[in-house]
């Protein structure tokens, strides 16, 4: 056996695996007469020992319970509505952004809101006679008005809708919700509790799950449903507790 042959066996020799006795013996005999290969084998063995130590250290590392809960909820959502294959649970990222990135995103949102406010006010002052609703997106979902009447409804304040924030959630969930909703300038409703009498701020951790529901689901929380779009999917964010149970819901457009 020469040094080149030995090199191809070094890893297996160090791991003591995948070698028959004859090959192993030949390799070890080679190291007795070759200092360089002996050192090479010693180094590989030391590396193998270190790797084993890291493996042992990481043996208990597992995803936190919130990942388990979120996946279980996603499984349930996936299996409960197999016929409507448009139900695609998307778990909101549980990434911990660096503070400077959060600050940058927050600053960006504030600037966007300020620019939109200035733009909207200047355009409405130029056209004072125009109907307040004409230039607005007229969201189907009207936050803070669970069951508005169709006639005589005052114009929806767009600033109020854009800046809408969940009120009963812990700060971390609000921050995440705000950052997520800013991605595509989504219009969201307030969060509607799904379990009466529970204070969400007392829960240790929460997870947001983006799902799609039939339009008829709006009526479940007292929101108006357009008969023409009743079967069209509606996006919603569901707040899950650590146990995977849904605690609150908001609708997104």
């Amino acid at each position, binding site marked *: 056996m020469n040094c080149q042959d030995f*090199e*191809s066996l070094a*890893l297996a020799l160090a791991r003591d695996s995948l070698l028959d006795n004859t090959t192993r013996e030949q390799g070890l005999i080679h190291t007795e007469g070759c200092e360089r290969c002996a050192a090479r084998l010693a*180094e*590989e063995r030391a*590396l*193998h020992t*270190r*790797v084993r*130590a*890291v*493996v042992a*250290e*990481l043996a208990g*590392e*597992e*995803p*936190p319970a919130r*990942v*388990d809960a*979120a*996946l*279980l909820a*996603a*499984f*349930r959502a*996936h*299996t409960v509505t*197999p016929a409507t294959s448009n139900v*695609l*649970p*998307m*778990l909101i*990222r*549980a*990434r*911990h952004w*660096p503070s400077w*990135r959060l600050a940058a995103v927050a600053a960006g949102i504030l600037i966007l809101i300020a620019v939109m406010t200035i733009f909207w006010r200047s355009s409405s002052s130029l056209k004072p006679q125009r109907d307040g609703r004409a230039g607005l997106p007229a969201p189907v979902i009207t936050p803070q008005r669970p069951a508005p009447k169709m006639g005589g409804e005052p114009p929806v304040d767009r600033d109020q809708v854009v800046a809408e924030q969940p009120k009963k959630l812990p700060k971390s969930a609000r921050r995440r919700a705000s950052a997520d909703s800013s991605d595509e300038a989504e219009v969201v409703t307030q969060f509607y509790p799904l379990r009466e009498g529970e204070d969400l701020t007392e829960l240790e951790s929460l997870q947001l799950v983006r799902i799609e529901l039939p339009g008829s689901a709006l009526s479940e929380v007292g929101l108006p449903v357009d008969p023409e779009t009743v079967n069209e999917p509606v996006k919603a964010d569901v707040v899950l507790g650590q146990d995977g149970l849904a605690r609150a819901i908001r609708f997104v457009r």
Partner: protein
Amino acid sequence: MTKPMVPSDAELLRLMLAGDEQAFTTLYRRHKGHIYRFALLMSGQTSIAEEVTQEVFLALLRNGSRYDPARGSLTSYLCGAARNQVLLLLEKERPYVQLVEESDDGEAVPITQLIAGDDPLGDCTRNEANRLVRQAVLALPERYREVIVLCDFQELSYAEAALALDCPVGTVNSRLHRGHALLLQKLRAAVRLDTTASDAQGMRCFA
């Protein structure tokens, strides 16, 4: 007394796709550690490891029927999915955090530039040798890092790693050899740098 039958991954997957929650939780418990630790070793970030674990099992929910047991183990299949997710997330992170500077020949930047973990206090208390190994692995170019994590840390066979990485077994073998050489080189450099740092600390002037 006969031992209770342990259902195979393929059987559990079939039941899971039919809506059996127990099968899903069993399958998840069986593999979540592997996937999480693979992503953790590949990225060095728990947040990425969590996200990868979520995405891999969500993908299994959606596309689990694509898995073919005849091609290889479910572990390989899931590791392949996890690897794709990790690379995707690391690519997204790259504009913000330059984890590894690669030159054309696969050399990485000195390890000192990479000592900035998410959890500095935890880093200090961890075993020093293990910390050095993990950081040296993180400093490897991705193509070597993934092979080393799969074969050395996850103990997959070359064939299983080849399936996960979608490449020939020969490529796994050659990358593993090259990866080991780079890893040893980095560890030697890290130990040298550590020694230099502690020497310098000893010479600190308090006047």
